[in-house]
């Protein structure tokens, strides 16, 4: 796995309610997901709410299945399948948001899943800031991140925001600095 021991240790040591920007390269994408769900969330006994606007949740689920990673405590907020008019059957742990432009609905689905799973601490993975930036302008995206992260922080949840280094802009970097407690870079 490409995730370095140093990063792994840093993440494991994070206090509750932390918000982290995880900068990764495209070829590290699936390693990062695997590490996040299989090691970080499982070790800390967390419910994971995985917001995907990069690839459909079904593709991530297939990858997790191939890697034999259990998804009992993983829930997806899928912002991309509906807009793709995907005919694929939806997994019972996947909730659709009509479009990645409906940022309020993403917050609402996260809220819903947090209420559905009140007994465990939560990890919210936002995958990714770059794909959301394709569909939303910086102003509304900053506002969304600011409200979402602070809300999650107040509930003691971990937030990890994926950012693909190849697609980062200065605006995205500034946004991440503003809302995150720490920025970690995979493979640094």
């Amino acid at each position, binding site marked *: 796995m490409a995730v370095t021991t140093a990063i792994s240790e840093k993440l494991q040591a994070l206090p509750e309610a932390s918000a982290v920007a995880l900068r990764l390269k495209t070829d590290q994408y699936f390693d990062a997901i695997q590490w996040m769900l299989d090691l970080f969330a499982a070790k800390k006994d967390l419910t994971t709410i995985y917001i995907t606007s990069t690839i459909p949740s079904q593709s991530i689920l297939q990858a997790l299945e191939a890697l034999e990673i259990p998804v009992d405590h993983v829930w997806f907020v899928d912002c991309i399948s509906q807009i793709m008019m995907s005919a694929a059957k939806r997994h019972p742990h996947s909730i659709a948001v009509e479009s990645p*432009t*409906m*940022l309020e*609905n993403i917050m609402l689905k996260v809220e*819903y899943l947090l209420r559905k799973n009140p007994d465990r601490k939560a990890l919210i993975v936002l995958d990714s800031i770059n794909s959301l930036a394709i569909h939303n302008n910086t102003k509304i995206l900053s*506002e969304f991140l600011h409200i979402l992260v602070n809300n999650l922080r107040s509930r003691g949840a971990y937030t990890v925001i994926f950012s693909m280094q190849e697609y980062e802009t200065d605006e995205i970097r500034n946004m991440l600095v503003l809302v995150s407690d720490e920025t970690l870079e995979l493979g640094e």
Partner: protein
Amino acid sequence: MPSKDREAAGERERCATGLEGLDHVLNGGIPRGNTVLVAGSVGTGKTSICIEFLIHGALESENSLYLSVTEPTAKLLKNVIPFDFFEERLIKQGRLRFLDLPQLYEKLGIEKAAFDFEEVKLLVDAVAGLVEENDVKRFCLDSVTSVNYRLKDPELIRDFLLRLGTVLSSKGCTSLLVSEIATTGDAIFRGGVEEAIADGVIVTGNLERRGDLLRTLQVVKMRGTSHSRAKYVLDLTTEGVLLVPLLKGGSVAGGA
């Protein structure tokens, strides 16, 4: 602030709606005894808000009554059951009651298509009787618009709402009156009788933004409390009605 502390501070006792987001917007809930208009176009969540308000009341041992004009009880119950916090015992114990208004009309012998002052008085007295008899603390009329259709004169509408509000408030009953408004219009701001008389006005609506249709909620007026007047986006879920702030970066000029 807890209810007792509020009273000590000279504030009115609150009736927490149980809708977490709405209670937050209202600084703790609706001032007890207020008559609140829930106005909105179709499919914006008015009935869900009312039903959730009543279920939470019943769960807190407050008798709750839903008077329906538009949908029969059996159909309404189908909307209640999906709520994760709904408990069947509430209906069995009589804490949560559903009544069809047409049945009440029949019982009162009101058959006319257009009501006059006598029928209005009869109807308000009948509601007052139900509230007193069952010690009802939360009441919903869905919808007041349907009743108003039978009141041809605005003066009659005013009389009906004033009488109803006064009677319910005197019994310590907090009420939601559902009002239907046109899908595209902003009828709430037309200066209608209902809005002027009600203690509070909650507007639900649809906001179209770049082709997306968002359900929104806004508390326009609420006597007896300071409150947010901002617009929120709502979602109807089995966990209840959820609210988050409308992101301003995406607001459109003149948006509903």
